[in-house]
């Protein structure tokens, strides 16, 4: 695996970000987080209202990279084998032949993931956590780049299955896109007047580039003091009033790695507190489970993490 300089890595990031920006108007912050997750080896859960561009963002990223991309539309009747693959008996060879599922790819778009049953959702646990799947008692490694972008709709409840806590913990980040500014929305209308610009989008980075970007992010230095700060933020969620289940050490790990990637994007070869704070909410909030009374009184997981960030003494 080739190693590149931070500047070269930043150039790769910039290229991909610019390419996506051609499609996603006014979503630079979301793109930045998405690419931070990609570069840190995490997975992303996009939660937003219908029509805000979740799927488009995922497809724009997939098209920007010269990598395998598969999309799974999650439905209530989807089975784990529909994702992982299935062994089929080949009568000619008189043996079983494994037919790989869509999980064997580089970028997997799990669209509307909360429409499938928890059983099917859980099929992704091993793949997302360990980069491998076990089918018929046999372990099968996934590609070195395996990135899941899942989307879900927060306003629909009928026929949906909320993701289990363990599954939520597997996502490095969860964030929303939000509605764009009117001017940007007008620009979207203009761009799609004849056809979708996504059709014309071509790849701007190879698989090797992305792997190099990941390696460069890993090499970004982080001080012991900031590691402690990361742990303090995460640990504070476990003792906060109204929180039934705090964030796990996996959240600390994800926050550190994502902050490293973000520092790389900012042209730094070390992490600063600003990068940690920027990603605290998208990395930690979705892992928390609130007590019913707290939820009823209007307290949200995002609010809890923002409060923790505000109250925890930041290294300076």
């Amino acid at each position, binding site marked *: 695996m080739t190693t590149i300089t931070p500047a070269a890595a930043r150039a790769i990031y910039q290229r991909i970000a610019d390419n996506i920006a051609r499609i996603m108007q006014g979503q630079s912050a979301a793109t930045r987080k998405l690419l931070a997750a990609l570069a840190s080896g995490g997975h992303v859960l996009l939660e937003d209202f219908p029509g805000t561009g979740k799927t488009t963002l995922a497809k724009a990223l997939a098209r920007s990279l010269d990598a395998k991309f598969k999309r799974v539309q999650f439905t209530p009747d989807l089975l784990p084998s529909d994702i992982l693959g299935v062994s089929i008996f080949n009568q000619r060879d008189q043996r079983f032949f494994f037919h790989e599922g869509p999980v064997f790819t580089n970028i997997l778009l799990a669209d509307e993931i909360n429409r499938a049953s928890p059983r099917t959702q859980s099929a992704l646990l091993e793949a997302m956590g360990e980069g491998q799947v076990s089918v018929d008692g046999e372990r099968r490694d996934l590609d070195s780049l395996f990135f899941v972008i899942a989307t879900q709709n927060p306003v629909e409840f009928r026929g949906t299955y909320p993701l289990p806590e363990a599954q939520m913990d597997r996502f490095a980040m969860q964030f929303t896109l939000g509605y764009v500014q009117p001017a940007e929305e007008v620009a979207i209308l203009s761009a799609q007047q004849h056809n979708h610009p996504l059709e014309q989008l071509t790849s701007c980075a190879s698989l090797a580039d992305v792997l190099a970007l990941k390696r460069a992010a890993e090499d970004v*230095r982080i*001080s012991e003091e900031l590691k402690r700060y990361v742990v303090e933020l995460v640990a504070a969620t476990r*003792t906060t009033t109204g929180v039934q289940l705090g964030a796990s050490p996996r959240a600390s790990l994800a926050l550190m790695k994502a902050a490293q990637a973000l520092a790389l994007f900012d042209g730094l070869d070390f992490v*600063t*507190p*600003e990068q940690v704070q920027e990603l605290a909410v998208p990395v930690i909030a979705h892992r928390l489970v609130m007590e019913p009374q707290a939820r009823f009184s209007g307290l949200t997981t995002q609010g809890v993490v923002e409060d923790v960030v505000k109250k925890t003494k930041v290294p300076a």
Partner: protein
Amino acid sequence: MKPPPLLLGAALLFWGWQSEFLIVGAVLAVGLEAARWTRARWEFSDEDFSRFWTFCSLMFLAALVYAFTANDGPSSFGSFFQNPNLATQRSAGTSSSRTASAILRWVPIIFFPFIAAQIYSTRDKIPLAAISLIMRRRRNQARLLGQPVLPDPGFHAGYPYFAACLLAASVHAAEDHSFFWGLCALLAWALWAQRSRRFAVVVWALALLAAITVGFAGQRSISQLQRYLEHINPQWFARFMRRGFGFDPMQSRTALGSVGELKTSGEIIIRLEPKGGSPPPTYLRQASYRQYRTPIWFAGGSLDDFTFVPESPPNSFIWPLLPEKTNTAGVNIASYLSGRRGLLPLPHGSGRLEQLNVIELKKNLTGAVLASGPGLAVFDAFYGPGATIDSPPELDTDLSVPDREIPVLDQVIDDLNLRGQSLAQTLLTLNGFFGDQFTYSTWQGAVRIQNTNDTPLGRFLTQTRSGHCEYFATATVLLLRRLEIPARYAVGFAVHESSGDNYVVRLRDAHAWTLVWDETRQIWTDFDTTPASWIQEESKNPTPWRWLSDAWSRVKFEVAKFRWGQSRVRQYLVWVLVPVLALLLYQIIVRSSRRRRREKPLEDEANFTWPGLDSEFYLLEKRLAARGVPRAAGEPLSSWLERVADVPVLADLRASLHELLRLHYRYRFDPLGLSAAERATLSAEAKACLERLAQAERTPVTTAK
């Protein structure tokens, strides 16, 4: 959930005001709220919290026992179980409610150590396992079995303690509405802090107002209902209010004429300790009676006949009954005063009582001494032969005999040829008559009434010749009176059972005998014609559990002594409790501060080994903060610098400050650090910025937020 500031202090003050512990409440409130102004905190472990809880629980139990005994719990429930009826049931109920009221009032004091531990602890939550034995056991079992241990959610003791204060304040004496409105105000305060942000304040206020209105109407209705029920029949309540003295000084209802077994009890009720080697008194008299109307003996007078016995000298616990009398013997007597008022059992001829801690002492003309004070009287009685406190005989009452009894009495007198005998001969003859021809029995069989003039006493003297002490005493008194010898019917206890060097008197030792007036010596003397076998008769067939009953009596006696301040145990207990408490506090507080000291160096080491803490950037930050732009704890330097640079006079510094921040960050957060040249640049740039800042300081800063 932590209560809002000052709520607990206010609740304690409210409790103190309502339950008349205002000073205690104020001290406790200051103790809790002082935590807001002091930084002293202890790092209590789960074990420490568990110890605090155990300590408070023990205090609660001790207080419960104390409150139960101080409110006549044992005697009320004892009476209820022995003789269940409406009166004893009500007495037990009253005792229970008083105990509950007392213990409720003390709850804020008892659990103060626990809430103080929570407030002065570095931890926000106390684990549930610290107060729950079941949970602790389950967690330990899970650990032993290697099963996953569920996380302990923990709790903050603030609101439970707040609720306890309000509950304790509900036991108040005031009849006005101050409790209700105080309760509403405190609850509103507590609820305000926990209100849902989903609803507007107006909605919240209206909901609260509705709840208060319903509450007020509800409590008014309950009060009115209670008043209504009380007015239905006041006699219902009045009938439960009667209380007794044990023996009634005005009358004594005998069992003469009753059929069946006379029930007796082996319960120890009096303890005696003869003083100076003197023998114990034979009888302890409580009262004597003069007029007999089958089957009741009357004292012939009223409660108003009692006269006060002065304590002389005052507060000396010495009560002279016969100031001029020379007493030759002494005995220490311990006797219960049921209902804190009762007749003292005294030896015949008692002249002075000492060490008697009672509120008042009265005596009447028939030798009854009525004491009011604690539920247990322990005193020294000094007595001797000769004068007694009984009045001299009055011929119309002390010689009166019911007409119905005269024929049979005359028949016995004639049979014994008693007329014309001296007093000594008469007493000897009667003693022999009853001793030889009568038997003692607590059983009276059914008899056939032969004629309308037949009386129980007549049957006893002529037919059955068997009965208990009341028969013998009554018959003797009436026979003597028929012989023109003044006599009275005395009741009390016989002393015969030793217990080591001391003596005990059981309930079954209750006895009746005769007081005979000795005309030549002008004194009353005891005369008992009940056959001596009565003691064996009463003591036969002892239950195998008697030792247990005696042990329980002993425990009750010692508890009563402790409770009524008749022993020094209470003083000793305080001195025992002080070191125990001190040891416990030492274990909890000093040990945890030692642990904190032990752990602190690690923390300090961790805090002070971070690189770059000597950066000159901090001088700049300090200077800028002093100009009115302080940095919040969670605010990173870049955001803060943005705010700082928004001030027009510092706009020129923006680029320099950001460059300086870049270097500072590398110095602080890059594990590779700065080169010597870069370090020098950081220092120089910072100093340059400081100088430029000093120049700009003439211009006042207005923060842009």
